[in-house]
């Protein structure tokens, strides 16, 4: 296509193809093309705390937690083939362990959060282990039940503060640490999981999703690999929960709230399933949105659902898949 001395050039296809295998980048333009989206994401997230006021900074922190959960949900659903609705369970287990370590043994958050993330992930994985043989909807149903299960156990036994919860846990020294801790966690998990899915283990995960019988016939223990995948997701989710209990200095039954199971799915659908970055972005859009709609009271849920339905009907691929496609088809005018 020619107009005068300029013509349209497609920048990308070839770069995309080349960079999927080896990194052969031949010009500054191509390097910028590759780095720009990552740069915008990281810098964008890290400058958010600087421009927001106190109230929205808090919202950013909880958006970070939802981002971690959405990321975990996307990873399990699209790359391992397990639809896990147990986000609330991870948050609850992580939050309770970290909070209890702090309340009963006086561990500082610096110590209790990492311990709670790992211990919570181990516990969640062990509890989900018997269900890992289930596929598709069955795993989803069982994992959805666990948070309810945990709530009733805590109430029935009257342990861990029962219905009142435990307040006055140690909080973070200041709001900057709060925000940057969760943002760094989100970025690290995002790039970590992206790396993971392109490694051999990620190929095996994908194989399990596509055809678990063939993976068995290849001499690979699918339960062992599913366990690893669930552990990774639980680790991220439990970190979110542990962080949450110290963010508000409080632990209680609302750590097992359904929101933590449902919201990440909404974020993933909106952001674009299977893109990993999409669900993160979705969480950073949906959480503030639901805060902004707080004025509508109960009507908020309706508006919220409408947005979701809109996405499912008109853009089922989600934001990020659409944007990525457009970006990779980017055309620019160049001088002849």
């Amino acid at each position, binding site marked *: 296509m020619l107009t005068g001395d300029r013509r349209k050039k497609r920048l990308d296809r070839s770069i995309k193809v080349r960079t999927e295998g080896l990194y052969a980048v031949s010009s500054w333009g191509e390097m910028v093309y590759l780095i720009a989206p990552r740069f915008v994401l990281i810098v964008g997230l890290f400058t958010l705390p600087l421009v927001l006021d106190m109230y929205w900074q808090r919202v950013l922190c909880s958006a970070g937690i939802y981002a971690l959960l959405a990321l975990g949900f996307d990873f399990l659903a699209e790359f391992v083939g397990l639809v896990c609705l147990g986000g609330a369970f991870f948050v609850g287990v992580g939050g309770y362990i970290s909070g209890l370590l702090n309340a009963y043994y006086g561990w500082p958050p610096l110590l209790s959060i990492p311990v709670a993330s790992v211990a919570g992930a181990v516990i969640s994985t062990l509890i989900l282990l018997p269900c890992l043989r289930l596929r598709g909807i069955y795993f989803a149903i069982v994992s959805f039940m666990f948070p309810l299960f945990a709530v009733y156990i805590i109430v029935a036994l009257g342990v861990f503060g029962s219905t009142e919860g435990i307040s006055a846990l140690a909080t973070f020294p200041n709001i900057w640490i709060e925000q940057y801790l969760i943002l760094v966690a989100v970025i690290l998990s995002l790039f970590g999981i992206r790396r993971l899915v392109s490694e051999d283990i990620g190929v095996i995960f994908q194989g399990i999703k596509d055809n678990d019988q063939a993976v*068995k016939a290849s001499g690979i223990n699918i339960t062992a690999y599913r366990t690893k995948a669930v552990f990774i997701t639980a680790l991220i989710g439990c970190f979110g929960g542990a962080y949450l209990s110290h963010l508000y200095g409080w632990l209680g039954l609302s750590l097992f709230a359904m929101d933590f199971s449902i919201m990440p799915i909404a974020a993933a659908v909106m952001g674009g399933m299977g893109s990993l970055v999409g669900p993160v972005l979705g969480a950073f859009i949906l959480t503030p949105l639901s805060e902004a709609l707080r004025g509508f009271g109960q009507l908020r849920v309706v508006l919220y659902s409408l947005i979701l339905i809109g996405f499912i009907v008109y853009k089922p691929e989600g934001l990020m898949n659409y944007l990525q496609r457009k970006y990779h088809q980017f055309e620019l005018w160049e001088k002849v």
Partner: protein
Amino acid sequence: MADEFLLQVGGVSKAFGGVQAITNLSFRLFKGEILGVIGPNGSGKTTLVNLITGFVRPDSGKVFYKARNITGLQPHKIANLGLTRTFQIARPYDSLPAFKNLIVPLNSPRVRRTRGGKLGDIEAVAIDMLEEVGFERDARVPYKTAGSLPLGYLKRLELARCIALKPDIIICDEIFSGLSMSEITSMIPFLEKLHLEGITMMMIEHRLRELFRLTDRVMVMNFGEKIAEGMPQEVIENKEVRKAYLGTETS
């Protein structure tokens, strides 16, 4: 024929609800042979493969592999012992490029053990392996997603998945089904080559003429029972076999 047998199936039975899929079936697979298994549709051939490779647990009876009882062992453990199978309906990983399909078996404990953990460039190994089973090396085919490949390639991919495990036995479940005549004729020499390399094979097949070019012993099944066993020629002459399976097809 060597007397040493690799696989011994002793009196296995399997029922799915009220349907008796396999009834008290026994046979041996000798080292280095190609055993053909034929029978009408629904005679229990695929169930037999599933029973041997652990995908289905037999109701009764035992399966011995290298004098070891493998009855009820999980499929991945059996595959790791070197007893591999292909699926009648090819089971590729649709969203992965063809060569990445082989990354999965190349990461199995068996391969890691036999290769001492060092595979070098695992993707190059995978592409070499695809070339070995008949993918063109420099063409784009190995890089295409498996879901977009035609059946001929998928069947070869099934075989490649088995070969990646450096198996002692490959059980081919209707590897020729759905292939064109030319695809079959190009695959036969490859199977012969595998046989010469010392891999024992069991081939479940409906294409008798092609099967008989490869095998020296055939077992015939009908309604879950073994009705005949022996040289292809004798089996064809067998009255019961003709009644059950061959009908009037051959004269």
